């Protein structure tokens, strides 16, 4: 079923919408959650929460891009669960790439009046200026939290090339954000 059809099912409050979403994007959701949580049980719960989130969001929302919408919900819910787990000092299987990102923009230097959405917009603008390969590798690493190895397999690069691309993209992004006045 195409995405439009699935959205129509949500609007019709037809529970088939969830089954169709699961069939089409369940594995994608699970991979996003698993990359963040590294725990099968937590990931499955996050995926289920994603479906509930979609059910509650559509309607009134009518996402122009359903796949990206699903990804965003799965990512946000997984990060929330991760944060809750971190507060409870739960240990997680594999550390995420947070340190690499914090190098770009440490929390303490971001002005309070700049919202996350504003920063996201600037990152989008920056990524559009990047070469397609660099852009996609960056998004895979820091949006989907793929391992360097998985990115290398996906794009058929060596791992060292992926690391090198990420290093230079991070450096350029940092420079760009400073230029755009995102820090104090």
């Amino acid at each position: 079923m195409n995405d439009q059809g699935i959205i129509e099912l949500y609007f019709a409050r037809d529970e088939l919408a969830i089954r169709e979403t699961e069939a089409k994007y369940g594995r994608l959701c699970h991979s996003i959650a698993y990359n963040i949580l590294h725990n099968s049980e937590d990931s499955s719960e996050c995926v289920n929460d994603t479906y509930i989130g979609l059910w509650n969001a559509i309607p009134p929302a009518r996402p122009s891009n359903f796949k990206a919408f699903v990804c965003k919900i799965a990512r946000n819910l997984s990060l929330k669960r991760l944060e809750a787990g971190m507060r409870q000092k739960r240990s997680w299987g594999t550390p995420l790439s947070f340190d690499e990102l914090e190098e770009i923009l440490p929390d303490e230097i971001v002005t309070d009046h700049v919202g996350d959405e504003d920063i996201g917009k600037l990152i989008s603008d920056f990524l559009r200026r990047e070469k397609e390969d660099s852009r996609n590798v960056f998004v895979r690493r820091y949006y989907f939290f793929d391992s360097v190895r998985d990115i290398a397999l996906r794009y058929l690069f060596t791992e060292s090339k992926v690391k090198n691309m990420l290093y230079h993209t991070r450096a350029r992004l940092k420079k760009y954000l400073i230029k755009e006045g995102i820090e104090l």
Partner: protein
Amino acid sequence: MKIPRIVNALGYIDDDLILGATGARLSNRNTWLKWGSLAAGVLLVLVIALTLSPMLLSGDGPQPPFDGEIVMEKYYDYAIIEGAFSSYMGANVIPADRVGNKLQDVAVTAGWKNREGDWISTEELSAEIYEIKGIGTAEAAALRFVEKGEAVTTTHYYVILPPNAEYNGTIFPDYKAENPVRYLEESDMGKCNGWQDFGLTGEIRTITVPVGSTYVYQMYSYYIRNDLSTIYSAESLPDAIEDLPEWLSDTVTVGRRSFWYSMGGRLPQTVTLKSTAVVSTENGTGTFLKAEYAVRIADGANEREEDWVIYFMEEDGTYSVFAVMANENFTFVKSYSESIVKSYQKKP
């Protein structure tokens, strides 16, 4: 510990950037081979498939046209002569249990038309119109012939639709019920690593390695039809499997597109058979007939062409089909689907 703000901020990047990264960019074969030692699992399957299949090494160029290009000389059609349903057109066959009360008797002109849609020969037949349960007659109805025509039965109910009707999935059977799935294994990634029933007595391994293969799964959609006659209950399938690929590319004969409809609920405008080949399984227990198609779909104003690879198998006169649509890199998906069918084995 908190999630850094930049991590949350990245959640707001634009949709097209996210989607751009959900596709796979595959480099040339040399890169594959250079990476052969590292690319385990799914990627290894690809390398093996590429190595074993010279045909697949020919690159992304178009396939040579199939010699027996389809030329539809004539097709059977029918039209209700007068009354409220006279503008309705014939469509698929619908199961009898979906049919409700009889509405009226009608006279029908049936017969053969040429490629331009002009009648070549006609016969006048009596028929009955029925309602379809849960569907208003403004959307669709069912027709059963009382007199047998040359190419229609008196035992089946044919859906009739008003002009420009949207084909509605609710009036078709749920083909998912005819696609049994048998997973033997589960991994941390879920039910992604197992065997599926294929054919009368066999099975194929659909996902070879779960780890790191999520993107592979996203690259294609596949459908298994273990008995084509369940879809074509009103028609006689070709006697020879060699005739099936061309038979399924007919988009003109009423109801012939049911197979395509069963795979995603879309009706193609044209189905072009590009090539056929015989593929033997690795253990020699089965033989598939492979057909590649270009399928043109008009989904509203959104017209597109899809690439399909379809593998046919015959066992005791029953046709089974493994159909794969490539969402992304066609060459990769072709090699991957080939590795799937080559895994075919008799069920233990």
